């Protein structure tokens, strides 16, 4: 009897812990979503009324249809998409090239170069922000999406190579040897043998690259200036400054910015969790 009671107590304790964990994990996010569909009058009522009687999508309609600053905001969404998608595709392409070289080919200083690549991840953004700004200024690439794309690729590639290298190393070499004997070129082997069996790795690193670029703020803040290149994180901070009292609108802007990364990572979670752990455990 005592054993049963202890078991029940244990289970209760565990479920209580789970409720607390899930509350802390989700409540801030849910509150943002709720606030974004609540009328302003209700958000600033004291004492606070928690849920809107009926959802008010006015903030979203405003962001997607009004002119002026909202148009800038929409351009920023577009810019973020262009930058993040370019960064992801280029990183996957060059990343699998590099990873293949490190995983399969034998060349001098190979293992040192890998470690050197890994060390680039230690450089704090602020240490290269100033010179990068000056370099892009001299190249007359300041305030362009291209500059941001290039710098995001540079930040992400070493990481992508590191993770993909792990995936490639786990593929049996015989698979590739067989096709090389059949007369396929090395390039053909990479594209027709290695890449198709590494789709989980490609998905995982692809999502990492996309999130990294979509969420990046420091460099975007330094390198962009006008609506033609500003990405969402920068636009959001300006939005925050401008609508300090329109809380619903502010939260709606936030929800729009956080939805793509959340949906992507939930959709690809299976690959992401594997990639996350394998990348970091080896790193």
């Amino acid at each position: 009897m005592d054993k049963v009671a202890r078991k029940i107590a244990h289970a209760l304790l565990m479920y209580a812990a789970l409720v607390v964990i899930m509350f802390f994990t989700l409540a801030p996010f849910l509150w943002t979503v709720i606030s974004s569909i609540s009328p302003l009058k209700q958000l600033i009522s004291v004492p606070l009324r928690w849920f809107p009687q009926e959802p008010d999508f006015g903030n979203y309609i405003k962001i997607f249809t009004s002119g002026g600053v909202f148009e800038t905001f929409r351009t920023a969404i577009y810019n973020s998409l262009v930058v993040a998608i370019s960064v992801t595709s280029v990183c996957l392409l060059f990343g699998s090239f590099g990873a293949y070289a490190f995983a399969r080919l034998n060349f001098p200083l190979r293992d040192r170069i890998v470690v050197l690549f890994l060390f680039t991840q230690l450089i704090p953004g602020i240490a290269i922000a100033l010179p990068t700004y000056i370099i892009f200024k001299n190249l007359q690439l300041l305030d362009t999406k291209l500059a941001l794309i290039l710098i995001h690729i540079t930040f992400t590639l070493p990481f992508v190579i590191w993770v993909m290298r792990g995936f490639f190393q786990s593929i049996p070499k015989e698979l590739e040897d067989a096709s090389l004997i059949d007369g396929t070129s090395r390039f053909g082997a990479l594209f027709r043998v290695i890449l198709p069996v590494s789709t989980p790795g490609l998905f995982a690193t692809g999502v990492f690259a996309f999130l990294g670029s979509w969420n990046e703020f420091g460099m975007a803040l330094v390198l962009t200036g006008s609506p033609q290149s500003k990405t969402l994180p920068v636009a959001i901070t300006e939005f925050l400054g401008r609508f300090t009292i329109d809380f619903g609108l502010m939260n709606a802007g936030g929800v729009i910015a956080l939805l793509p990364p959340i949906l992507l990572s939930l959709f690809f979670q299976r690959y992401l969790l594997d990639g996350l752990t394998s990348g970091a455990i080896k790193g």
Partner: protein
Amino acid sequence: MPAGTHEPNALPNAPYPQTGKPPRKMMSEARFAFWLLLPTIVLVCGLLFYPFVYSIYLSFVDLNLTKPWKGPEFVGFKHFTDILTNTEFWQSMKVTVYFTFVSVVSSIAVGLLVSLALNSRFKLRGLARSLLLVPWAISGVINGLIWQWILHPNYGVLNAALTQTGFTDRYIAWLSDPVLSLNMVIVADLWKSFPFVALMYLAALQSIPKDLYEAAKVDGANSFAGFRFITLPLLAPITLVLLVLRTIDSFRIFDLIYVLTKGGPANATQVVGYYLYKEGFQFAKFGYSAAGSYVITFFILVLVFIYIKKLDRHNDF
């Protein structure tokens, strides 16, 4: 056994079965590798190493931006002595070290506890694990936006919740008090950082073979002893990896501060990343800021070096 315990040893002697391959093949292998790596090398050299070296140059000259006719002027270690004797810089270092320490320790502690809770068998475990990805995927800027609204002094939901449940009788200005604000920033950071730690620990926990615990049980060990003498030692390698990653991340925190407090009140939350950004880009003190960025790069390298030394020692036994 978690993968981390044998991986580092496996790396150096990765097999290169060169048997039977003609030397001509070796040449083409190196050349092929060169072409594959060329885009990466160009970008990493051009936009990482070159700027990194360029900022050494910046830290030793005065660009005379206000007097462009004078051109850059060599000033020796002036920027370094300036920054190392500046009280605002050291204040920001103090804030950063406090932030890093509390943030790293709390995220690892909370992450570990969460992973232990999620490791037991229960319904919807998969869902709970997936939902941890929500804060993880959100950017620092949005994290700042979310918490700024939660912590709002007049309309914030935290104040509403605390007064409606009777914990406090008045609304608290969370981000206006110097001591409170830094800790609230840490809470906001914790929300985003603990899920990653929890997911890592969860993966490590699931790789521990169950029969280890059963064997210990047969020997008369209780579940606490099992945790203390089986779980914890096997989590040590991943803990060190997490320490390195989390320390690097926390030490260069920027976006959250930029959105949430802008370093205020009274520089109480001004971390070194924000301080150097302010000096460099708002006050155009390029050399000074570059010198400072080297000081913090040095700090990060020292920290990582200490961790790696520990990691090496750990792998010996």
